[in-house]
């Protein structure tokens, strides 16, 4: 299927044409932009640099029921799944993050909850034309218009979007809305490509990751970990807002005579995360936790799955309350190697 044009004026019709599908898109909630299920009257908010909360919560919700039961019983009822939907307006970096996390949720044992959402949804990207200050996707093999993990890519051409289906799933979705779409001209395609290139050139920050995965564990006792973690508050911003962070906790919750076992995001920056029942903590201070976070992303994940678990979206830098800057850490790592 060739590229097509979606006029911005027809956005409402487009959403309607997709039918009863669940459609997730960025929505303004106060000052905060995050992905949520579109209501009937809602229009996707597509004029943004990036969302505060990454779209990972569409496929890996912050809290998710694994199964429900009655107290005293032995029957476990899993939530009904299998619904199909679409996610619109994902930045290419966040989409890449999903394809990176896919390998974690499908290695050895498949995680049915994650994978079902991943295959049930169609992911429509929105090329990034104005990278933020702290974007560094190009350093990690990504690009402002990367297509990895996406089923279609949209590019903003001022009064319209150029829509390029990338997979069968993407094509199928857009066929439903064929009436509202127009054919794209060669000029449209060319101008989109030009914008993509310009955007890539605008990415201001970078780091050379060459050698980091292999050498990082060698810096185990380096002073740099103390320096970078001195100011760390031990909060969960960097991990909760990270599109590739995937750690979770499992808890039982009981209400009256009914209960559920559910999982929720957890963060390696919390002390409780590794605390043993005996009171012993293998990562007793923020120094060890910071070191583990960086090592996990830049070394352990590479060992296990062959790719760095960071896409350079810059959220952890943007939102860290005390200016712990992963690029700064990586630069120090490079110097120390």
């Amino acid at each position, binding site marked *: 299927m060739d590229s097509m044009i979606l006029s911005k004026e027809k956005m409402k019709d487009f959403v309607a044409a997709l039918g009863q599908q669940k459609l997730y898109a960025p929505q303004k909630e106060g000052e905060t932009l995050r992905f949520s299920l579109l209501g009937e009257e809602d229009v996707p908010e597509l004029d943004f640099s990036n969302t505060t909360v990454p779209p990972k919560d569409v496929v890996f919700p912050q809290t998710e029921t694994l199964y429900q039961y009655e107290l005293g019983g032995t029957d476990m009822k899993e939530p009904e799944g299998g619904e199909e939907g679409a996610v619109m307006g994902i930045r290419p970096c966040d989409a890449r993050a999903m394809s990176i996390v896919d390998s974690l949720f499908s290695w050895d044992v498949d995680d049915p909850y994650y994978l079902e959402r991943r295959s049930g949804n169609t992911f429509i990207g929105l090329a990034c034309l104005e990278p933020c200050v702290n974007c560094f996707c190009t350093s990690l093999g990504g690009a402002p218009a990367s297509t990895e993990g996406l089923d279609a890519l949209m590019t903003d051409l001022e009064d319209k979007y150029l829509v390029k289906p990338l997979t069968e799933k993407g094509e199928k979705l857009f066929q439903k809305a064929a009436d509202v779409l127009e054919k794209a001209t060669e000029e449209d395609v060319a101008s989109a490509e030009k914008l993509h290139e310009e955007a890539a050139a605008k990415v201001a920050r970078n780091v050379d990751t060459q050698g980091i995965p292999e050498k990082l564990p060698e810096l185990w006792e380096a002073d740099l970990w103390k320096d970078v973690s001195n100011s760390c508050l031990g909060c969960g911003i960097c991990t909760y807002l990270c599109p590739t962070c995937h750690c979770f906790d499992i808890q039982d919750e009981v209400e009256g005579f009914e209960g*559920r076992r559910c999982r929720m995001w957890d963060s390696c920056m919390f002390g409780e995360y590794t605390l043993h029942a005996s009171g012993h903590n293998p990562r007793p201070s923020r120094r060890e936790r910071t070191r583990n976070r960086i090592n996990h992303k830049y070394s352990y994940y590479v060992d296990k799955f062959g790719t760095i678990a960071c896409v350079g979206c810059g959220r952890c830098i943007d939102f860290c309350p005390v200016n712990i800057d992963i690029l700064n850490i990586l630069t120090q790592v490079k110097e120390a190697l």
Partner: protein
Amino acid sequence: MSEQYEPNIVAFLCNWCSYAGADLAGTSRVHYTSNLNVIRVMCSGRVNPLFAVNALQQGADGVLVSGCHPGDCHYMEGNYYARRRFALMRELLEFIGVEPERFNMSWVSASEGAKWKDVVEEVVEKARKVGPFDQFRRNKINW
């Protein structure tokens, strides 16, 4: 739904005054509504204001904390601390959008069986007026 709505009240009573007062009401065969779920605590000062939050979360439509009159506390000063805490928690709950009618505190001594009846009826009546609590009630919609 012709059935009348009956509010569910969780009451924390101090062992020495209010619980004894409620007991007196019982032994004196005073009739009053049965909407109360009583939790006996040693002192109103033991009631963590988060208990109230928790009660509301888990299905209470109103909360009552009752202790000894000022100066009569079995532990000398427990109810004074409770008074400060609940004055603040009340303001906070009201500010976040919980009707003030749902959150009550009373002084009932061991000899005030009749006052106990009045307090209970007032609390239940107030809660009935504002209807079921659903602001931050835990519910399975999220499940």
